[in-house]
């Protein structure tokens, strides 16, 4: 039987890890990921873990030992955030290039300097090209469910690519909500034990994680790109299948919220999706035709979805909690390039940096701006909103 509990996002994710029955967890604490790894340590202390917990001396070693464990055929987990993610960056591409389906949680946090422990998505989005599948969640419940889904996606023989589950620092990691914890036997039926040929074996010794020169290198990269193509299908399939076991699903790669007849929509990723839902509901009550598109999978990116939108909406705004300096918001770039050829008016709103609150009023302001843009107003493409000064 499933049970309900009042949990923080990190605790919920920790339950997702426990239920996924990893063999090895290796982690190094960093705010705001700490309460996740503390919860995992509690599971070990209480005898409820079933995994070996490696207390490594750094994030680099956390990912390196996850790689080592995976090479032996183990299901491995780690978690990090911000500087820790940057520190393990080198190992991210080792794990993905060698096709080891490690799952990690990143508690999204800004990157220094200025030193800042609070939430934005600069850490994960700077790892865009590390070769990891990157999923972003909206709630603690989704964090728990997505960790379990992540193993199923990562270990799919056609995918065999690591998955990073992202939850916004503090806004999700440290806020409490009622969460349904699925029963272990339900998860066991959904997520079978990990089997792979991509592991060391006494009967059939292998060279793993190896050096590949110019003669074969591009072919390996082609296979990685192909795997991300398969992942687009698998992410949707796994989410639908998860619903048959638990009654919960999240739209797979993408979710449209009240978009049917919308004139303007906001595109969002992570915890700000929840705030935007409320604002959409409020504006809809006032008769405004607004909608929301939630990006759940940043890599692979739902390019085909955005491409088919064509001129469905008059104007679209992309909320970014990161910026690629000298260009534009990171998510905005992806949406804009996916919609190449469409003449939908697009705006990029940079907000929520370094943990700055994104109040409902700011979301309302975005919708207001989008209606103006749709009405023909000439507006700057990339805008910092909610600033003390510019």
């Amino acid at each position: 039987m499933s049970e309900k509990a009042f949990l923080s996002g990190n605790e919920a994710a920790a339950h997702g890890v426990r239920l996924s029955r990893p063999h090895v967890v290796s982690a190094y604490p960093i705010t705001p990921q700490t309460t996740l790894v503390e919860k995992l340590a509690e599971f070990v202390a209480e005898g409820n873990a079933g995994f070996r917990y490696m207390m490594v001396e750094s994030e680099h070693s956390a990912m390196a030992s996850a790689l080592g464990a995976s090479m032996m055929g183990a299901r491995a987990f780690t978690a990090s955030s911000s500087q820790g993610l940057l520190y393990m960056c080198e190992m991210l591409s080792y794990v993905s290039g060698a096709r080891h389906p490690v799952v990690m949680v990143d508690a999204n946090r800004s990157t220094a300097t200025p030193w800042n422990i609070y939430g934005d998505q600069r850490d994960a989005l700077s790892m865009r090209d590390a070769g990891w599948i990157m999923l972003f969640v909206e709630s603690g419940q989704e964090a728990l469910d997505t960790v379990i889904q992540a193993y199923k996606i990562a270990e799919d023989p056609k995918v065999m690519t690591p998955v990073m589950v992202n939850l916004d620092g503090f806004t999700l990691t440290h806020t409490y909500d009622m969460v349904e914890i699925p029963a272990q036997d339900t998860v066991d039926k959904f997520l079978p034990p990990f089997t792979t040929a991509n592991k060391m074996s006494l009967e059939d010794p292998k060279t793993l994680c190896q050096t590949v020169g110019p003669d074969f290198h591009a072919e390996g990269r082609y296979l990685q790109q192909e795997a991300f193509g398969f992942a687009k299908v698998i992410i949707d399939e796994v989410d639908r299948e998860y619903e048959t076991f638990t009654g919960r699903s999240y739209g797979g790669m993408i979710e449209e919220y009240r978009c049917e007849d919308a004139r303007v929509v906001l595109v969002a990723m992570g915890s700000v999706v929840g705030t935007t839902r409320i604002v959409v509901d409020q504006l809809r009550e006032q008769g405004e035709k607004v909608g929301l598109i939630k990006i759940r999978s940043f890599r692979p990116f739902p390019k085909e979805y955005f491409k088919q939108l064509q001129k469905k909406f008059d104007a679209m705004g992309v909320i970014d909690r990161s910026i690629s300096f000298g260009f534009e918001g990171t998510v905005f770039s992806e949406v804009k390039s996916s919609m190449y050829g469409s003449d939908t008016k697009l705006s990029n709103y940079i907000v929520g940096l370094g943990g700055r609150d994104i109040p409902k009023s700011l979301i309302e302001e975005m919708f207001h701006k989008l209606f103006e843009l749709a009405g023909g107003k000439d507006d700057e493409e990339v805008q910092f909103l909610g600033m003390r000064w510019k």
Partner: protein
Amino acid sequence: MAINYKTLDDTELLYGAKTCQGCGAIMAARMMMKILGKKTCLATPACCFAATTTVYPQSAIFVNNAVSAFPGLAATVSGMAVAKEVLGWDEEVTIVGIAGDGGTIDIGLQGLSGAAERNDDIIYLCYDNEAYMNTGVQRSASTPYKSWTTTTPTGVCSKGERNEMRKSLFEIMVAHRIPYIATASVAYPKDFMEKIAKAKTVKGCKVIHVTAPCPTGWGYDPSLTVEIGKMAVELGLWYLAECENGEMKLNHMPKKLGPVDDYLKMQKRFKHLNEKDYVEISKIRDREWIRLKKMFGLA
């Protein structure tokens, strides 16, 4: 744990490597594989050993192996060792990390310290060729005093490597209180293989630091690798020792700490040195031996 050459297994688990002639590192790895046998899973960072043994689609290694990142080797083999236990692999399987002096003493030290502190069940072999050889002879923390390297070039303002003392991996690992630490030399194969054999029987973190002369980086005739290795030990420029469960033991005491001139003159990396330098290096060596004798309880 005595090794008898006559009864040593003929099976080779490492051959066909594209190393330079006279490579000490590959001698060390080959001898190690002879002792550890087929039930071995090894990993290595992107060093000489990796570059010369496994580039797809070829491999000179006949056991499970993998390449990991420079700072990540110790943690990678740690993860392998823990997974081996959790997954119930054959207990006789040895998990081994092989890295050079740079990958161990410099960029790999933090990870090795972590693995040692956790006492994960691994053998970590550091083959020491006294510089970053795979990238083209740049200095490491194990490069000897006044040695030329490409990053310690000689000139009016430079006589090569400035540090008089190399970082002591042996003592660093002793401070971690792991069950077995040894130094060795490829020029003393029996001693080296016996140390590997002993490490194989010990549970926990074992670190073996083997000196591995490099004809390319040091600048000597490739046929002289063993000769040079022997000279280094007999002249007291390297030592053979063990620390088993905290018990320190010097395995070989040089008969006489003679002049270092010939050893240095044989190698191009020291060709800029003169009589004064030879005397200075001898004095540093003598001072170090006073310390070493105390450390091994021989003073």
